[in-house]
């Protein structure tokens, strides 16, 4: 938790959730409860949601608005940048060795945004956000560029689903092209919408440094959303062309990304305007918050399609999602078996193809390259602190994606806790 979630850039939300000064949301960064708040100067601050006095949570509820943040316990009052600005009976501290003026809500040391998405890192040093995201930036670009107005906003409610299993299970599953035919056999049968193996084999699967990956060239718009000649889609395309011109519009709509994984905290679908933030609660407990995005300037019907898609894919009672959660729990249960410590992650091993921007591409879309890449990053994050706890060590870049050969540990990886 310290070495990985305490260092990596984590996705916390989107600027549209904290538009006005005083708007805040509460979330978690690994074990840290945090407040994401818009300060009076327009900056976004990320503060540890724990009063400097006796440790109560200061902000309650998933979202809110407050001019100042007031602790419910003894009324310690903070500005929206965490500065302590008032407390009762202040004269009682006049002989205290610690000046109360120095006390405040702890600020998370690094906060940045990319295309409106809010990221933060609990580590004071490490790679910049742009370096961390690397070629995955294109997935965020893709989501935003699809908006005729060039902006997206969070809208339509947040699904919060949970499972009794480790946080890695969901990330290992999202770019797994083999599981749908088995895990979702019943949904596919009931809805009659399966894809043959060939589709998955031909799908592009790329991995990048720091454990990231994305799946591309999966579905064109005729498969899962309004048909290309549908009036709504034509209206949308025309709106997009007004901003980008026909050539760039064709390029934007031609980008067909399925899940993009920002290791270790996020998985999103740029093409379908879904973003999931993964919260590790305990070794065997994970909560996932799933958000929908509205493309500003697009026809209203497009957002209705987004919501209908969200209900079916991310809904807590979704025929699809419930089978994923069931299998995560079965994996978590059975991995406690002691007579076999290994899992097999060898599909596609040895066939990874170096591609542009320092990425590796799986030999086929069903390669397990994304899991090997995640575990290689996991291993390097955990090694960074070292057994002696080199807390000052910079958060180094896992080099996994630059290896032509995956490390042996990750071909047959012991399941980490």
């Amino acid at each position, binding site marked *: 938790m310290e070495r990985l979630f305490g260092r990596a850039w984590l996705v916390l939300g989107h600027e549209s959730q904290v538009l006005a000064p005083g708007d805040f949301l509460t979330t978690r960064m690994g074990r840290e409860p945090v407040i994401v708040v818009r300060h009076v100067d327009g900056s976004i601050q990320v503060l540890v949601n724990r009063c400097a006095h006796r440790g109560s949570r200061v902000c309650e509820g998933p979202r809110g608005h407050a001019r100042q943040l007031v602790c419910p316990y003894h009324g310690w009052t903070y500005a929206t940048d965490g500065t302590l600005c008032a407390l009762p009976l202040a004269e009682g501290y006049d002989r205290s060795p610690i000046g109360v003026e120095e006390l405040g809500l702890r600020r998370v040391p690094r906060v940045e945004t990319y295309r409106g998405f809010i990221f933060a890192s609990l580590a004071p040093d490490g790679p910049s956000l742009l370096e961390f995201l690397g070629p995955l930036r294109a997935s965020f670009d893709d989501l935003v560029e699809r908006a005729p107005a060039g902006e997206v906003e969070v*809208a*339509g*409610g*947040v*699904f*919060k*689903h*949970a*499972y*009794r299993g480790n946080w890695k299970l969901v990330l290992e599953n999202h770019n797994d092209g083999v599981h749908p035919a*088995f*895990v979702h*056999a*019943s*949904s596919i*049968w*009931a*809805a009659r919408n399966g894809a043959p193996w060939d589709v998955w084999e031909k799908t592009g699967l790329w991995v990048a440094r720091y454990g990231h990956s994305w799946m591309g060239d999966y579905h064109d718009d005729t498969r899962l959303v309004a048909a290309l000649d549908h009036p709504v889609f034509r209206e949308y395309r025309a709106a997009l062309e007004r901003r980008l011109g026909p050539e760039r519009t064709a390029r934007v709509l031609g980008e067909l990304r399925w899940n993009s994984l920002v290791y270790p905290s996020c998985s999103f679908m740029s093409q379908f305007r879904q973003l999931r933030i993964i919260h590790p609660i305990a070794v065997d407990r994970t*909560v996932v918050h799933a958000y*929908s995005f509205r493309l500003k300037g697009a026809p*209203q019907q497009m*957002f*209705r399609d987004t*919501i*209908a898609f*969200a*209900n*079916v894919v*991310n*809904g*807590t*009672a979704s*025929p699809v*999602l*419930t*089978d994923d*959660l*069931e*299998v995560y729990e*079965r994996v978590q249960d059975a991995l406690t078996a002691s007579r076999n410590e290994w899992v097999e992650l060898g599909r596609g091993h040895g066939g990874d193809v170096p591609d542009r921007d320092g990425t590796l591409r799986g030999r086929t879309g069903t390669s397990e390259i994304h899991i090997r890449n995640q575990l290689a990053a996991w291993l390097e994050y955990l090694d960074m602190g070292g057994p002696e706890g080199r807390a000052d060590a910079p958060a180094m870049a896992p080099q996994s994606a630059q290896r032509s050969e995956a490390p042996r540990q990750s071909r047959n990886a012991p399941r980490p806790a």
Partner: protein
Amino acid sequence: MTDSTGVSEVERFLYDEAALLDGGRLDDWLALFTDDATYWIPLEAGQQDQLTSASIVFDDRRLLGIRVAQFTHPRAHARMPAPRTVHQVGNVRVLADDGHELRVRSTLVMIEFRRERQRTWGATVEHRLRRIPDGLRIAAKRVDLVNAEGELDGIVAIF
């Protein structure tokens, strides 16, 4: 309309519906819905909109049919075995009746058991019931779970 035991036609209908769910007779339960019916479990308390706000479930008759059919597939992992349930319907109130359709509100306590785990649900339920020659059919059903906004494990049971 009240039978000799004092149970109204509406109450009888809701109890019978609950009995179908508890008996695992999902096809018979599905047949209670009109072709234009919706089955809705909002994600937020007081949610007004189904089209631009996400829902735990918002099924039309076709999607509800898929949901029910899924239970019969041998590899419906989360539904095999299906949860055992008790649906306790209470506080039945007819809010409106225009002779064609009735708006009925009730409360539901449902206990579910599956794979060594028991879950308890509480909900306010609103039925829009349509009169047809041989009785009543469900034209819309809305289930407001008291914990709809919470962090919930996957939901498989039908309310």
